[in-house]
C-alpha cells in the first residue's frame, strides 16, 4: 500500500460536455458507460433469444418485422436455419463478452473499486478511458457483422475451427462476418487487458490510509481476483484470435489440417490442428466463467452482510474460496473437450480438479446459509436478488457435478443439459448479482432511490420465470435433446416439442418482466425519491462520500482514513447498529 499514491491528484474536474460525458477520465462516468453498453447488449441479446425461442417452436412462422433485419436471413420474416445459428452466435458472444464480463466487473468495478478503497480515481485514468472506448469499438465491429452481405457469423460463441477458419467454402456466415467476429473479440481482449492491469494497479497502489488488504470489502477483493484472472485469460485469447484471423485472411494453417474437402473444394491448407484452437479457446473460456461469476459472488456477499445486519460467519473464508476457484479455473479447461479426441487419459486429469471446484463452491454456499441463521434479514429488492443468486448458484452448481464426469459427459455432452447448467450458474446467477448491485448502488450513482415495490415485483417474477425457462432444459438434456439445432426434426425430438413450447412462453414472459426493471431504472433516474446519505446504513467507504453521486475526486479533496474491518454490523455505536469504516469511533457491546 502506498499512502503517497493515494494523494496524487490525477486530473482536474472536467469542464466541457465531451470531457464530462463522452471521453471522460472519471472512473464513475466510465463505469456508467460500461453499464449502459452492457444494458444495450443485454437487451439485444435477450431479443435475439426471443427470436430463437419463437423459431424453435414454430420454424415456419413469419416473425413480423424480421425481414427488415435481414432480407436473406429471414425472407418474409421466416428465419432460415443459418440465420438461426447466426442469432445464436451473436446471442452468446454479446452475452458472454459484452454483458457478463462488462456489467459485474467493468461497470460496477470501475465505479466502486476506487471509492471503496478510498482513491480519487483509477491508477491510470487515460488507460481506463481507452479500455472503455476500445470495448465500444469491439461492440461496433461485432454488431456490424449483422449487416455484411454473406451473413453474420454462425460458428457459435466458441467459433470452433476449421468451420470458423476455412472461409466462405464452409457455407453462409463464414465469410466477412466470421472475420469481423474474430476482430471484435481481438479488440475486446485488448480492452480487457488494459482494464485488468488498471484494476490490479489501483488495488495495490491507491488504497487510502488504514485500508489494508484485509480491510478491503469482499466485493473489492472479488474485482481484484477477477482482474488477475482476466489478465491471464485474455492474454491467451488475444493471440488465438489473431491466429484465427490469419488462417482466414493470411493463408496460414494454425487450425486447419491438410486434406479437407469443403463444398467440393480441396483446401490449400496443411499442418494445422483444430484441437489447438479448442485448447487456446477453453484455456480462456473456462476462467471466463469465473470472470463472470466472481464479481457477482462479491456483490452478493457484500449486500447480504449489509441486509443481515451482522458479519458473515467468515467473509475471509469466502475470499480464500474465490482465490481457490481462480487458481483451479486454469486446470480444468479440458473438461469442455472430453469428447474432442484428445488423449482419453487426460479426461481424468481434467475431471478431478473440476470436481474439486465443488469444495470451495460448497463452502461459500454453506457460509451464506449459515450466516442467514439468526440474522435480522432486511428484505429489499437488492437482498432478494442476493437470495435468488444463492438459489440459482446451487441449482446451476449441482448440474455441474454431472458434467464434470467424463463418463456422464459421453451421454450429456452437447445436449440442453449443458445449456441449462451454464445459463443458470453463469448467466442468470451473474445477472442476479448485477440486479442486486443496481438496486443497492443506484442511490449512490444517481442520488435517487429506485422504487422498492417495483423492484420486489421484478424480482419475484424474474425468479419464477428463469426457473421455468432453465429447469426444463435439464429434463430435455436427459432425454438427449441436442443443442444448437435450428429445428427439431428427428423422430425422438418431436415428442419433446411441448416442453420447448413451455420454455418459449416462459422466456417471452420473463423477458417482458424486464420492462418493469427498465421502467424503474429510467423513471427513478429522473423522478425517483431523493436518496438519503446512507440509505442502507452501510459501512464501506462508498457511503462516506460527501454527496451522491460523489464529486469528481470522490471525497471532495479529503482523504478518508480507515479505522475498521469492512463489516462492523450488529455493534453499538452512535449511528445505530453499525460502524462505518471511516468512523474513528470504537464499537461498543453488541446490542
Amino acid at each position, binding site marked *: 500500500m502506498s499512502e503517497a499514491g493515494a494523494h496524487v491528484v490525477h486530473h482536474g474536474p472536467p469542464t466541457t460536455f465531451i470531457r464530462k460525458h463522452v471521453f471522460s477520465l472519471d472512473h464513475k462516468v466510465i463505469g456508467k458507460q460500461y453499464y449502459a453498453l452492457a444494458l444495450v447488449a443485454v437487451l439485444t441479446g435477450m431479443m435475439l433469444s426471443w427470436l430463437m425461442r419463437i423459431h424453435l417452436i414454430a420454424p415456419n412462422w413469419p416473425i413480423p418485422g424480421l425481414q427488415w433485419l435481414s432480407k436473406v436471413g429471414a425472407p418474409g420474416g421466416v428465419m432460415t436455419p443459418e440465420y438461426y445459428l447466426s442469432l445464436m452466435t451473436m446471442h452468446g458472444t454479446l452475452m458472454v463478452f459484452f454483458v457478463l464480463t462488462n456489467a459485474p466487473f467493468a461497470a460496477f468495478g470501475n465505479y466502486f473499486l476506487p471509492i471503496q478503497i478510498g482513491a480519487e480515481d483509477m491508477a491510470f485514468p487515460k488507460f481506463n478511458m481507452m479500455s472503455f472506448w476500445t470495448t465500444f469499438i469491439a461492440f461496433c465491429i461485432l454488431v456490424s457483422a449483422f449487416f455484411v452481405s454473406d451473413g453474420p457469423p454462425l460458428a457459435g460463441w466458441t467459433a470452433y475451427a476449421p468451420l470458423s477458419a476455412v472461409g466462405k467454402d464452409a457455407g453462409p456466415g463464414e465469410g466477412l462476418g466470421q472475420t469481423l467476429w474474430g476482430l471484435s473479440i481481438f479488440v475486446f481482449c485488448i480492452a480487457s487487458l488494459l482494464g485488468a492491469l488498471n484494476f490490479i494497479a489501483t488495488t495495490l497502489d491507491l488504497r487510502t490510509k488504514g485500508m489494508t488488504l484485509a480491510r478491503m470489502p469482499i466485493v473489492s477483493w472479488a474485482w481484484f481476483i477477477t482482474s488477475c484472472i482476466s489478465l491471464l485469460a485474455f492474454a491467451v485469447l488475444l493471440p488465438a484470435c489473431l491466429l484465427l484471423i490469419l488462417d482466414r485472411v493470411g493463408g496460414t494453417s494454425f487450425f486447419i489440417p491438410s486434406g479437407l474437402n469443403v463444398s467440393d473444394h480441396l483446401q490449400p491448407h496443411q499442418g494445422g490442428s483444430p484441437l489447438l484452437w479448442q485448447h487456446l479457446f477453453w484455456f480462456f473460456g473456462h476462467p471466463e466463467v469465473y470472470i463472470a461469476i466472481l464479481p457477482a459472488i462479491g456483490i452478493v456477499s457484500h449486500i447480504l452482510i449489509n441486509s443481515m445486519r451482522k458479519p458473515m460467519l467468515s467473509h475471509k473464508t469466502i475470499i480464500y474460496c474465490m482465490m481457490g476457484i481462480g487458481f483451479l479455473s486454469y486446470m480444468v479447461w479440458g473438461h469442455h473437450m472430453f469428447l474432442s479426441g484428445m488423449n482419453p487419459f487426460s479426461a481424468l486429469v481434467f475431471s478431478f480438479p473440476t470436481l474439486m471446484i*465443488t469444495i470451495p463452491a460448497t463452502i461459500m454456499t454453506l457460509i451464506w*446459509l449459515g450466516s442467514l441463521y439468526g440474522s*435480522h434479514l432486511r428484505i429489499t429488492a437488492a437482498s432478494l436478488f442476493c437470495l435468488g443468486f444463492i438459489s440459482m448458484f446451487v441449482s446451476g452448481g449441482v448440474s455441474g457435478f454431472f458434467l464434470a464426469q467424463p463418463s456422464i459427459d459421453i451421454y450429456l455432452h452437447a445436449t440442453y443439459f449443458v445449456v441449462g447448467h451454464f445459463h443458470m450458474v453463469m448467466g442468470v446467477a451473474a445477472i442476479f448479482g448485477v440486479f442486486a448491485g443496481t438496486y443497492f448502488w443506484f442511490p449512490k450513482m444517481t442520488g435517487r432511490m429506485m422504487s422498492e415495490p417495483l423492484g420486489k415485483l421484478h424480482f419475484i417474477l424474474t425468479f419464477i420465470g428463469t426457473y421455468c425457462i432453465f429447469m426444463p432444459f435439464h429434463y430435455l438434456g436427459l432425454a438427449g435433446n441436442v443443442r444448437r439445432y435450428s429445428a427439431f426434426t428427428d423422430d425422438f425430438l418431436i415428442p419433446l416439442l411441448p416442453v420447448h413450447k413451455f420454455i418459449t412462453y416462459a422466456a417471452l414472459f420473463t423477458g417482458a418482466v424486464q420492462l418493469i426493471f427498465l421502467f424503474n431504472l429510467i423513471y427513478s433516474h429522473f423522478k425517483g425519491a431523493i436518496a438519503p446519505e446512507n440509505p442502507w446504513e452501510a459501512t464501506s467507504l462508498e457511503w462516506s462520500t460527501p454527496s451522491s453521486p460523489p464529486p469528481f475526486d470522490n471525497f471532495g479533496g479529503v482523504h478518508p482514513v480507515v479505522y475498521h474491518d469492512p463489516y462492523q454490523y450488529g455493534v453499538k455505536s452512535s449511528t445505530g447498529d453499525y460502524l462505518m469504516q471511516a468512523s474513528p469511533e470504537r464499537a461498543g457491546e453488541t446490542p
Partner: protein
Amino acid sequence: MSGKLFAVVVIVIALASAVPIINHTFMGANVSMPEDISTHGYEIDKQIDETMIEAGLSFLAAQLVLGFFVWKTAGKKDGPLKNFPGGAKYLVVAAVLLVGAEAIALGAIGSKAWAKVYFQPASADALQIQAQAGQFAFYFRYAGPDGKFGGIHPEKIDEGNSNFFGLDPENDIPARDDITSGELVIPANKEIHLMMHAKDVGHSFYVRELRIQQDFVPGLDLSLHFTATKVGKYEIVCTQLCGLGHYNMKAYLNVMAQDDFDKWLKAQSN
C-alpha cells in the same frame, strides 16, 4: 412479506424439481432417458443415477434450508443476533470432507465407465467400419470380401458419382470391393470398431440409445468401439455445430440379427 413469499417460492420450486429427480432415482433411468442398447451403457446409467441422488439431495437440502432460514429471519428486528452454532469452522470441515469424499468416490467409480469405452482398444475380431462425416451427411464403408479398405483421396471426392470417400478403384485394388452405405447397418451382439474420418469440418457421432458420443475431428482419425444388444432402428445425429444444415445431419443405425446382416452385406457386394 416479500421475504416470506420468496421462502415459499424457493420451497415450491425445490419440491417441484424433486419430482423428476425422485422419479429418475426410484423408477429407473428409463423414465427420463431412452432404453440402453449397449453393453457398456449400464455403467454410464448407474453413474448418472448415483450422481442424481447425491446432486439431488444437495440441491434439495440447500434450497429448503435457504427457504427455511429466510422464512425465519426475514424482516426480524427484535431479539439478539445469533451465530450459527460452531461458526464457519465446522461448515468448512463438513464441506471439505463430505464433498471431497463424494467427489473422489464419484470420480473414481466413474472412471471405470470411461475406461471401458476409451482405455481398451477394440478387440481384434471386431467388425471394422469406417464412418465419414461431411456437411451434412454421414457415410459408412465396409471393407468388402477382401477385408481391406481402399485409401482415401480427398481430391477424388465426387458426391455426384457417389464417390463419397474419394476412392480410387482404378489404381487401388482394395478399394474396388469396398461397400458404401448411408445407413450404419450392424449385427447385434458383435463388437463394432468404428474408424472415424472428417471430410471437411468438425462433426460428432451421437446415438442416445448406444450411450455413445464422439467428435469427428478433421486431421485426426479417431476410433470408437461398442456393441449393440437390441435389434432395431435408431437415430444417429450430429452434435458438433457444422454449419447451416447441422440440425438436419442424421443417419440411421440399423441393428440386425447376424444372419440378416450377412444377407444385407452380401446383397450390397453384388
